[in-house]
C-alpha cells in the first residue's frame, strides 16, 4: 500500500492545491485529433503546467523520458469506440469496451498509473465489461503500486438522469477499486452526493473549455481535488494560453 500511496502522491502532489490532468489518449479510438497530430510537439509545452498526462500506450513508449519533468504519466488501459460521434469517419454502430493493457505492461512502459473509462447507458454487457475491467486492473495495479483512475462516462442513450448516472458511475468506480475518480461536471446536488460518497480523491471533468473555470469553482467547494481535461480540449484548448490560464486559476484558488 505504501507504493500505491506513493503513486497517488505523484498524481496529486499537494493536498492544498487543485491538480490538473490532461487525458490525451483519445487518439486510440478517434485517430489523429486536430491539435495533437504531432503528439510530442503538442504536449511538450504543456507539461510544465500539468500534474498528470494520460497517454495511449503507443504514445507513451515514444515520448522521450527527459521531457516530463514533474508531470506524472498515466497510461490508458482500455479501448472504447463510444467516443466516436456521428461525424466521425467510422461512426459507432455497436459500442464496445475492453482492456488493452495489463498492469505489468503499464509498469513496463514507465507509467505511474492506469486510466480506464466506466461507460453507462449503453448495452448492459458494456457496463458489465467495465466493472470487470476496473476490478481486475485495480487489483493488479495495487500489487505493483499503480493507482487506477476511473473516468466516469455516463454518455449512453439510456441515461435518463445525467446527475444520478454520474453518481452511479462514481459509486461503481469506488466499489470496484478506483484510487482516483474523474466525474463529469453535473448538477450541484449530484456533485455534492459524489463528494460525500467518495472516500478517494476525485477530479471534475468540465463540460467545455469555456465553462471550465466556473465549474472548477463549484466543484472545488464540493471537495474536488482538481480538473480532468478530456479529448474535447485537443482541438481548441490545447493552446498553451488556455491551459495556463486555467492552471493559474486552479492553483491560486486551490491554495
Amino acid at each position: 500500500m505504501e507504493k500505491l500511496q506513493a503513486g497517488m502522491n505523484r498524481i496529486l502532489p499537494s493536498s492544498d492545491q487543485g491538480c490538473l490532468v490532461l487525458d490525451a489518449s483519445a487518439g486510440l479510438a478517434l485517430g489523429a485529433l486536430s491539435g495533437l497530430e504531432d503528439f510530442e510537439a503538442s504536449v511538450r509545452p504543456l507539461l510544465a503546467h500539468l500534474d498528470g498526462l494520460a497517454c495511449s500506450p503507443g504514445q507513451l513508449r515514444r515520448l522521450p523520458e527527459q521531457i516530463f519533468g514533474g508531470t506524472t504519466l498515466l497510461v490508458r488501459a482500455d479501448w472504447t469506440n463510444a467516443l466516436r460521434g456521428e461525424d466521425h469517419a467510422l461512426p459507432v454502430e455497436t459500442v464496445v469496451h475492453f482492456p488493452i493493457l495489463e498492469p505489468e505492461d503499464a509498469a513496463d512502459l514507465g507509467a505511474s498509473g492506469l486510466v480506464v473509462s466506466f461507460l453507462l447507458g449503453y448495452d448492459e454487457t458494456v457496463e458489465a465489461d467495465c466493472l470487470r475491467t476496473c476490478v481486475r486492473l485495480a487489483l493488479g495495479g495495487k500489487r505493483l503500486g499503480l493507482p487506477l483512475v476511473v473516468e466516469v462516462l455516463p454518455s449512453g442513450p439510456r441515461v435518463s438522469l445525467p446527475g444520478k448516472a454520474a453518481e452511479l458511475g462514481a459509486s461503481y468506480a469506488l466499489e470496484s477499486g478506483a484510487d482516483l475518480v474523474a466525474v463529469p461536471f453535473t448538477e450541484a446536488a449530484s456533485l455534492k452526493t459524489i463528494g460525500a460518497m467518495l472516500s478517494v480523491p476525485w477530479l471534475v471533468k468540465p463540460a467545455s473549455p469555456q465553462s471550465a473555470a466556473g465549474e472548477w469553482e463549484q466543484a472545488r467547494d464540493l471537495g474536488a481535488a482538481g480538473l480532468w481535461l478530456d479529448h474535447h480540449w485537443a482541438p481548441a484548448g490545447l493552446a498553451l494560453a488556455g491551459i495556463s490560464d486555467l492552471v493559474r486559476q486552479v492553483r491560486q484558488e486551490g491554495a
Partner: protein
Amino acid sequence: MQSGWSDRMERLFNRRSDGRAICVAADHGYMSDVTPNVVNLRSIARAVVQGGADGVLLSPGQAVRLAPLFEGPDGAALIVRADWMNMPRLGGSNVTNAVPQRGLFHQPVLGPADALRLGATAITIYLFLGYDDRLEAAGVASCARFASECRRAGLPCIMEPLAVGSRVNGTNIVDLLTLGARMCAELGADAIKIPYTGDVESFARVVRVSQVPVLVLGGARSEDERDALELLAEGLEAGSAGCLMGRNVTKSHDPEKLVRQLCQMAHEGFSVEDALRGRQWDRVRLRVVSSKCTGCNLCVTACVAAHGERRFGSQLARLGIEPIRLGQHRVSYCTLCKKCIDICPESALSWHGSTGAVELHPDRCTACGKCVEICPTHVISKAPTAAQGRRLEPWLPAICDLCGGGPACARICPTEAITLGERSTVK
C-alpha cells in the same frame, strides 16, 4: 523493453543506413487460393533476397522451410505473419475462390515468442476497419496485446490497417486509413504497413499522423511493372520509409529485377526512369524518330496535361506534331540547341542543374519574345499568365523542361517515336 528491439529495427529499416526498407510480402498462400506465386514461392523468395530486399514477409510454415535465406546478421530480415484472415476468399478479389467465405474472419495465430524462435526480425498483424465494430474491437485487442508482448520480447511489431467492408466507400476510405494508421501508432506499432491512399498529399498525412516508419503496400498486381515503381516513388515522396509489396513482386516475370529496381529507388535515389533503365543518367534529352510517328497526338495531350496549368489548348504544348504527307508526320521538339538561352537579354533562361533542360526564371523574364522568335523548331509558346498577382507581363514562354527528367511525351508515345536518351555533355 528487452534488448534486441533496436537491433531488429536497424536490420529492417537501416541496412543501408538510410532509414528505408524495401520488403516483399510473400504470405499469400496462407490466406488466399493457390496461385503461381504461391506454388513457386521458394524460387521467388530466393530471387527477391538476391534482388536485395531488406525484408520478406512469410507465413509461419514457410518461415521454417525458407529459414536459410535469412541466415547471418546482414541478410534480409524475416518478417512473420502472426495472424490469419480470409479476406481474399470473400470474393471481389483476383483469386478464384475455390471455397468462398461468408464473412470476414480474423484471428491471431502465433505469439512473439514463437516468432522469435522462427528467427523473425519483426511480425505483422492486421487491423480491420469498416467491416463491423466487433471485428474492429477484436483487432484492436489483438494489436494491443501484440504490442505489449512484442515490447517485452524486443520484437518490432508492424501493424497493417485495412479499410474493408460495407462501411467503406469512395468518400471515406482515405479517412479510414488515416484513422487506422493513427490508431496503430497509439496502440504501439513500431511500423505501419498500409495501402496507398491514391495521392501524395493524403498519403503524406497518413505518414505524418503515423509517427513511426510507414511502408506502402502494393495491392493487386498491375500488368505494367512501372506502376509498382511509381507507387513507391509517390510513397517515398510522401515521406514513407519504403514498401512492403506483395503480388506486384511475387507475380512479376522477374521478381529479382523488380526488387533491384525498387531498392535502387529507395536506397540510391533513382527515379522511376533511372530504375527502369538500370542506371542513373545525369541528364536526359528527347530522341525522336519521326518515321515512327503516327500522328496520334498523345504526346501533345500528355505534355499539356503534365504541366498542370489548367489550360488544355494544344498550342500550349512544348512540342508539336505536323503532317507532312499522307501517313507521315514531323515531330518538333526541343533539341537543346541553346539559342534561346544565348539570346535572352535578361539571363532568364539557363540549363537546369540536374535535368539539363532549359529552365525559365520567371522573375527575370520580361516577355520580350526573343526566345519564341529564335526557336528553330517553334516549340516555345506564349503561355498567358494569371491575372492576379504582381506579374505585369501578359505571358511567359512555355519551354520544354523535360518534365523534371521523365518527359510525359516519351512515356506515353505508343510507337516509341519519342524516347529518352542520355545527354552526356552540356554545351
